[in-house]
């Protein structure tokens, strides 16, 4: 019984090991060729490593015993030959193994990024980008390091343990045992030290983090600190945090600076033993008795002992690297286990993407049937019991306070989130059953948070036209769908005014654009692919009223126009819609045209309208004042 328990534990251990090392094994297998040649080079280096001390021994013995001098020449040449061969092999294992590890790292990084690209919106809502970045950088790097340098160190150490002791034993068994007395302490020292170093290093990192946090706060809150003239107190506090870091750093230094020398000392003790006992053997050796130890052997041992320190230390280091790679690969696997994107029905009623001609378009009928929705992880319904039909060709506008559910409703159309309770149908087909790519080709969605890539204007706009950039080769977009779209979005003139015109780089790392320009570019990006349903989620808020009017008028006549669904805060954006829906607390409150809704004296829409009227009045008065100020300078 205990035997089976033991075997179960063993198999548990084995399966844990297999699980932990799955990335390592996978990539080592994938790059088995370079790994093989790298290992061969390594073994050759380690075997050759045994020879130089023997050559030294033979040279010394030859020199003392007055053997023919040409022997010395042979030894010298042999030494050189070994060095050359070792040089080549040392080059070989680096080039083969480290290269393989870089390629494996690249593969793993690509695989991880590829997975991220397939994950649904709800995943990114909850994960800070910094965390994902650190997975893609430092955790991938930890796994890569184990595949390359980690494996190398381990293999190197293990081979040394085979080759060097054999050579030593062959030369003199007694001296070998003697020299090895202090050596077993080394792996123990290394492991113990690594643990101490790790613990102290973590403490130091904490101190550094505290300094960073305080610096960040002090820089961010500089106005407050200056306003209260508390610079002195801040500097005092910073100094004391710094002193904490100094203490932690010195605490680390105490183990770290002692580590190397301690190893060195242990090794040197072996040398003391060697000198004392080996020397005694040489002295007491009478002429004619067994010449167990020659002077040359003695010198060869001196070299061997020095060589044994490295593999002992390496063993500890390799174990540390392995541990780190296991932790990191588990973190990576947690994300890789996430299911990619919203599930969709296999036997979809809509023709698969490959089957449809690129021109195929939906009619654009949108039906909400008793639809309720809450964001993943939220405890409260963002939408409840929405029932509404949008006919093909209709423009429907949604208004309501912040949090009334406008964005939630609109984000369901391109299925950024799957519909849970109730139904959302497009052309009579449940959105959950649409092939995702096709659905998103049909629905043009402009979000309220503008996002442009750090690319040129034309690249950003032609974004949804697959293959267009490649086909046009980035030439000027005159008379192309791109210009058509920028004309419609009233941003063409702006673009022409940029220093590089359509080739101007925008986005985070590009030129500064006004909020309105960014919004109009994102609208152009959405309409260039001629979606049959266009969704604007508060996408005109930073555009001035006159331009907005032109855009909205233009959209009515855009090529291939079908349905438009708009959410907005401004009356000007929505008043011309065919129907206006007032949302409150996730429910539909009022539906009707602008005139119909205004007629309801007590309705929410009327208040909204009154507020907007006063706001417009205020704005136009302010504009008058602007002109006066610019003219007069003073009051």
């Amino acid at each position, binding site marked *: 019984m205990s035997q089976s328990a033991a075997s179960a534990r063993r198999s548990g251990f084995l399966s844990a090991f297999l699980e932990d090392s799955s990335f390592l094994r996978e990539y080592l297998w994938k790059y088995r060729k370079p790994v093989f040649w790298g290992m061969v080079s390594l073994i050759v280096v380690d075997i050759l490593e045994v020879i130089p001390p023997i050559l030294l021994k033979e040279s010394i013995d030859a020199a003392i015993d007055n053997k023919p001098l040409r022997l010395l020449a042979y030894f010298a040449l042999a030494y050189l030959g070994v060095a050359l061969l070792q040089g080549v092999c*040392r080059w070989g294992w680096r080039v083969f193994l480290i290269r393989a590890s870089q390629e494996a790292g690249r593969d793993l990084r690509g695989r991880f990024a590829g997975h991220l*690209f397939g994950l649904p919106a709800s995943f990114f809502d909850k994960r800070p*980008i910094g965390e994902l*970045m650190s997975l893609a950088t430092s955790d991938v790097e930890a796994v890569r390091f184990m595949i390359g340098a980690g494996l190398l160190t381990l293999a190197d150490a293990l081979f040394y343990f085979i080759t060097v002791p054999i050579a030593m034993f062959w030369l003199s068994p007694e001296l070998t045992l003697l020299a090895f007395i202090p050596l077993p302490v080394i792996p123990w020292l290394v492991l113990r030290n690594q643990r101490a170093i790790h613990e102290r290093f973590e403490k130091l990192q904490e101190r550094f983090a505290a300094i960073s946090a305080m610096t960040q*706060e002090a820089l961010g809150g500089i106005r407050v600190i200056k306003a209260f003239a508390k610079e*002195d107190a801040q500097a005092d506090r910073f100094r004391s945090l*710094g002193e904490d870091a100094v203490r932690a750093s010195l605490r680390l230094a105490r183990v770290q600076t002692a580590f190397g020398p301690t190893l060195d000392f242990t090794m040197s003790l072996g040398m003391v033993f060697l000198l004392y006992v080996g020397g005694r053997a040489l002295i007491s050796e009478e002429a004619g008795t067994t010449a167990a130890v020659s002077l040359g052997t003695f010198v060869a041992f001196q070299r061997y002992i020095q060589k044994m320190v490295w593999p002992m230390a390496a063993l500890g280091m390799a174990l540390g690297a392995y541990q780190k790679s296991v932790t990191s690969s588990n973190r990576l696997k947690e994300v890789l286990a996430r299911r990619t994107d919203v599930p969709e029905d296999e036997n979809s009623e809509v023709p698969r993407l490959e089957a449809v001609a690129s021109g195929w378009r939906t009619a654009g009928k949108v039906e909400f049937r008793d639809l309720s929705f809450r964001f993943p992880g939220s405890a409260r319904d963002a939408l409840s019991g929405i029932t509404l039909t949008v006919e093909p060709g209709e423009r429907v506008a949604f208004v309501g306070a912040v949090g009334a559910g406008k964005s939630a409703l609109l984000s369901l159309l391109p299925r950024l989130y799957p519909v849970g309770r109730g139904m959302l149908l497009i052309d009579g087909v449940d959105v959950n059953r649409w092939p995702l790519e096709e659905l998103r080709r049909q629905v043009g969605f402009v979000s309220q948070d503008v996002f442009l890539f750090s690319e040129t204007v034309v690249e950003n706009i032609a974004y949804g036209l697959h293959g267009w950039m490649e086909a046009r080769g980035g030439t000027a977009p005159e008379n192309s769908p791109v210009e058509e779209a920028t004309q419609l979005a009233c941003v063409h003139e702006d673009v022409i005014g940029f220093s590089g015109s359509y080739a101007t780089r925008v986005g985070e790392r590009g030129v500064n654009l006004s909020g309105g320009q960014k919004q109009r570019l994102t609208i152009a990006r959405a309409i260039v692919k001629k979606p049959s349903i266009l969704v604007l989620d508060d996408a005109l808020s930073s555009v001035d009223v006159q331009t907005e009017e032109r855009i909205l008028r233009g959209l009515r006549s855009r090529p291939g126009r079908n349905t438009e669904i708009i959410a907005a805060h401004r009356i000007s954006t929505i008043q011309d819609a065919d129907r206006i829906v007032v949302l409150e607390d996730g429910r539909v409150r009022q539906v009707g045209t602008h005139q119909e809704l205004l007629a309801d004296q007590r309705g929410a829409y009327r208040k909204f309208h009154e507020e907007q009227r006063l706001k417009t009045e205020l704005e136009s008065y302010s504009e008058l004042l602007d002109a006066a100020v610019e003219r007069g300078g003073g009051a």
Partner: protein
Amino acid sequence: MSAAEGLEAYLDVEERESRKIRPDNLKRLLRLIFEHPLPLLTGLLLVLLGTAATLLEPRLFGHAIDEAIVPRRWDRLVELTSWFFVLITVRVLAVIGQGYLFEILGNRVTQRLRCELFSHLQRLPLAIYDRNPAGRLMTRVTNDIASLSEMFSAGFVSMVSNALMVLGILVWLLALDLRLGLIAGSVFPFMIAAGVYFSGRLRISYREARSKLSALNAFLAENLLGMKVVHLFNRTGVHLARFERLNRWYADAQIATVRVFALFQPTITVAAGIAMALVIWFGGVAVAEGTIRIGVLVAYFSYVLSLFQPVRELADKWNVFLSGMASAERIFSILDWPTELPAELPEAKPLRGLQGHIVFEDVWFAYEGERWVLRDFSLEIRPGMKVGVVGHTGAGKTTLISLLMRFYEPQKGRILLDGKDLREYDKRELRASIGIVQQDVFVFSGTWEDNITFWGKSPGLATGSGSPAGLGPALRRQSEREKRELQERGSNLSVGERQLLAFSRVLATRPAIWILDEATANMDSGTEKQLQGILDEAASGKSLIMIAHRLATVRRADLIVVLHKGVAIERGRHEELLRRDGLYARLYRYQAVSAERSEEAVPVT
């Protein structure tokens, strides 16, 4: 380069690390180091001792062969073995000692620079903060200080001791036997050349790889941020392909680095092999001929073999040293920026007997060039007067306060406080005398009390010691909050609590002048009433400036100034302004309706 096509945007132009070290910066750094003569000199002494012991060891080993083993003298062997033991003990202790002493030195210098840098940043005028993103300044305090500290702990010691070691070995080799020394040392110049060559090549490769890594990271970070757009436009495939290109690009740069490194080590191996072969032949012959003793040859083997490791380390550490120097250079350049405050900062006490009579006299101000934010602005606030300042965002309301606090100086006109030009006051004493409650309450991570005293000495109102009687229940409950840990940016405080915190900060300083900068903007009416009570008592008889977006706040003010594009276009009391039917009246009417609507609205979760 073709792989980079279209992806250049993600490549940062890296700050150039010059290979030249500016002598004045080196001098400046050395001056900082010499401020700690004890660890420095003792450390250097131990380096000498350690190097000497290391050098003696092989010689002693060889000596033992010549003096004890070959002549078979047992007593000498015991003696020399004991010496050998002493020698290694001394060496090991010296190495530990020097490492630790240099760590102390490095830590002290780093701490000194870190504090100096921090205090310098605190003393910079706000204009500098407007121009420099906080992230960049942050990098100076963290990354540059870290690389400087690495230079001290890894680069400095190792460079000094390795250089000494190389020098010592070379001298010793020549001293032991001039001919053999010259022969063995003949390889050395080639070693140095290889070291210089490879360290240069490595630096270039490292930089390449680093810049490609940062491009890869920038691309990925941007895509994670815009993932929604990628999905909505069905662009996953295209973006993955581009990522793959950058990924490949980076891996190739890394492999190029590996290639350089892969050549460096074998070069050293072969050079060492040549040197050893020469020693075996010439040394062996010399021993056979009896010109040198066998122990000398054994010592030679050790010396020649230990000559190459330090050279490799030197080549490696040279790069650490260079990047440390580059960091020092960047830190020094910030330390040279002019500050608005002196280096020595005592605790700032509020000015005594301040009346709070404020006069803005024809003030013109622009943050840059001729883009005026305030135009010919004049205003008199007599002691005890309550003044409201209203207007759109960007009208210049907050700028007014910044000028009063002397965060900026007006280009034309002047500001008087109690009849004296502001410039005649000490900046910090002036600021300490003005209590300002801001809309965005900046909460530091720490306790409630820390947030009020800023970790300073004077507890003031925070501990309730000096709280005026009858300040309402809000303050009395405060003592319970004092020990509570507040999270970064106050994420565990309600909006009302934050405002209370901001008020408490000001109450603790008992200022002569109160400023409320949109202080009650996001407050529920209950809290607002409470704070109004506190304020009425604390600020009674004191001058008060209220900046408000919500006009209800300023209705009771003695004077309301309406700012538009930096011009005071209307001024008067509430009723007068309503009668004028200008900007104020329109703002008021709009807000009346909009406030009604927003109160009906569902609270945002």
